[in-house]
């Protein structure tokens, strides 16, 4: 059971949207985590510096927020470790061949009405709903 948090979720979402707009305005880039990460894996992209900096900022941000404001960033992973690993492997292969994830397709691509992103988002959201239903209500898992 997690608490329904419409206000902070709206605020958080607005910041994600703002970051996407800023990265397009300043760098002309899609703020997609998959694309940014992929350029940092070998063969490393020549423009690795901005990618690494964006990644560093994204990793430090929650820690800074907790340190500076004491805000409680809720975290709980109900998933057993072997399934975290399996899920991670599947996500990695999926986002590579799918050319993006929630940030790249779901926010940036949908925002520019890309047909590929709209299709991708419909498919991955649909697959997630089905997967959670199967894991929790058919298999009785986590």
């Amino acid at each position, binding site marked *: 059971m997690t608490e329904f948090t419409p206000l902070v*979720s709206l605020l958080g979402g607005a910041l994600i949207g703002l970051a996407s707009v800023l990265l397009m305005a300043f*760098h002309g880039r899609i703020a997609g985590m998959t694309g940014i990460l992929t350029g940092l894996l070998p063969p490393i992209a020549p423009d690795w510096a901005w990618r690494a900096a964006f990644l560093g900022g994204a990793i430090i941000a929650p820690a800074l927020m907790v340190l500076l404001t004491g805000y409680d960033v809720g975290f709980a992973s109900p998933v057993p470790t072997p399934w975290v690993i399996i899920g991670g492997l599947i996500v990695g292969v999926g986002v590579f061949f799918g050319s993006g994830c929630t940030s790249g397709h779901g926010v940036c691509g949908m925002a520019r009405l890309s047909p590929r992103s709209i299709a991708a988002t419909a498919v991955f959201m649909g697959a997630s709903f089905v997967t959670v239903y199967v894991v929790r209500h058919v298999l009785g898992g986590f």
Partner: protein
Amino acid sequence: MRRTIFAGLIGLVFGTGIAISGMANPAKVLNFFDLAGDWDPSLAFVMGSALLVAAIGYFFVLKRDRPILEPRFHLPTNRKLDASLLAGSALFGIGWGIAGFCPGGAIPALGLGESAAWIFVAAMLVGIAAAKTARDALRPRVAKTV
């Protein structure tokens, strides 16, 4: 240098948004997808507001000739709905539904020092690297058959 610093600052905004919104919390993400259980609709609000802000912002930004720090916009030009896009996205959704992490949620979760996030990201990077290697290995063969 300016590019790198600005990218870092924008990354901070992104990571803060992810952390506040609950996208870095697998329990919350999985409950959003659990319509038949204790459904938590929060993530619909995250995606809705992110999309609204991005759509309005892009509308103005993309009217410019070029970005502020770069000579041109880097926008995907592929318009095809191909098997790679659809199958890859389906796989991503399955993995997201199993682990409760998506890439944009997991990276900021690293900063919370949670071991599940580190394990997930390590596995995800192995997955991306393996997929990249597989595609590069297949590519020349595909080219020959065309």
